[in-house]
């Protein structure tokens, strides 16, 4: 299987994980078992991590508060960023953690039921970690786009139903 083909399979799944290996095989003109085998390999080696669904929770009527927290870390001997990051990302409230270049070290996205929820987590769990030097919490007021998907997309199919 060529590199382009591998990439195409992953790209198709990243866009729409409801397509079965049979469909993907047809779309790319490949044998089904080859595609199925490649997908299993990718799952086993954790290149494919998860098949999830992007949900607009606000629209679903769910109360949800998110905050982006800039975390500055006090570098310590024998405690690298990875160790610090792990201490943070294990908390289930933490949705994502990135190591950043620039003015701070870790960017942490937290989701909770309420502002109080999030504030408490920061004050009690995050700020108190011994190598955390400082935190700056920015609450998210509105989500417009996430993972490449626009939440309230005004672009719809406006084409005529039949045209030459």
């Amino acid at each position, binding site marked *: 299987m060529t590199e382009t083909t591998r990439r195409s399979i992953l790209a*198709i799944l990243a866009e729409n994980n409801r397509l079965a290996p049979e*469909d993907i095989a047809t779309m790319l003109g490949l044998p089904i078992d080859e595609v199925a085998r490649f997908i299993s390999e990718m799952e086993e080696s954790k290149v494919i991590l998860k098949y999830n669904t992007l949900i607009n929770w606000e629209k679903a009527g769910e109360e949800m508060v998110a905050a982006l927290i800039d975390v500055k870390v006090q570098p310590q001997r024998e405690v690298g960023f990875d160790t610090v990051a792990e201490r943070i990302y294990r908390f289930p409230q933490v949705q994502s953690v990135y190591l950043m270049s620039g003015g701070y070290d870790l960017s942490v996205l937290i989701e909770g039921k309420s502002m109080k929820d999030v504030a408490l987590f920061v004050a009690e769990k995050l700020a108190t970690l011994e190598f955390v030097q400082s935190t700056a919490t920015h609450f998210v007021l509105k989500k417009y786009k996430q993972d490449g998907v626009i939440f309230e997309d005004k672009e719809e*199919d406006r*084409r005529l*139903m039949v*045209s030459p």
Partner: protein
Amino acid sequence: MNSAELVSPVVRDLPPSGIRKFFDLVAESKGIISLGVGEPDFVTPWHIREASMYSLEKGYTMYTSNHGLLELREEIAKYLNRRFGVSYDVRRELMVTVGASEGVDLAMRALVCPGDEVLIPDPSFVSYMPCVTLAGGKAVMVPTIAEEEFKLNPKTVESMITPRAKILMLSYPNNPTGAIMTAAELKAIAEVVERNNLIVISDEIYAELTYGEKPVSFASLPGMRDRTVLLSGFSKAFAMTGWRIGYVAANPDFLAAMVKIHQYGIMCAPVMGQMAALEALRNGEAEMQRMVNTYDQRRRFVVNSFREMGLDCFEPRGAFYAFPSIKRTGLSSEEFSEKLLHQAKVAVVPGTAFGPSGEGHIRCSYACSMDQLKEALKRIKTFLATL
């Protein structure tokens, strides 16, 4: 006053469009999935839209030269050279039109004399025949068949040439069949053209949407450049149907004649569209390739699905249409399409809307999402089982 009687008989007697009739039927129905759309399902890539907005901010709201913006013609010339190996003088051999549609009309009006015959592959795009008629010519439909993958057969062409034959229309990749013609196949056509001293109008608007073969421009064949009026545009490859920008490349005499009609009838193509087209040619390659790859994936899926349900479907190598045969159902194209619409709520276009040789086939556009395609094909399969 009987206003209907005052309409020119040439116009009055033009046959009504088969597409239009189907459009009215579909408009009355609800919950339809349409495979009847002849334009990309993608919205114009954002960078192109953004460039057009920026040009509006800068005040680009005026007429341009009749030929179109010089900068745009320069980009078109570079593109045609890079992609197809044909070169045109931007000042004397290229013009920007209001879609390839205007190009078809201009070419016919500039070249057809009363009674001249224009050979048109059948089935093909709906405008050719009416444009010939309106220009005072006679359209001669040259049948193409599924067994030959709807390619134009040089022998058939030659057999239909009369002393009045002047122009051969080419349209590959083809709407509605998805047929393409390779360089070798076009060469055989070029020999017929040369032998019979014909002019060719080649509508290459789908050239970028070619799968597994490199697209060939008829103008690039030896000896054909100056016999060919090359028509193309931005609608299909760059998902820019609503912008109405196309272009014509031809020898200076043909081009000057077309510009003359254009300058009195149209003046110039809209400048916002021209600015958008400029951006498309300068920076649109990657997005276009992404769309082409997506069409290609859907194409395989659609053809495979039709074959699995037992319909003969030759492999289309271009455009975004599949053209399966429904002959085994015993229904005509129109009957099949109407029944399918009412019973299964899927809209397709009967092959006969594109010429008599489309009988026994339906045009299914795969310019729609995979989810819609899957659902539509499921419905068609269920529908076939009820026949």
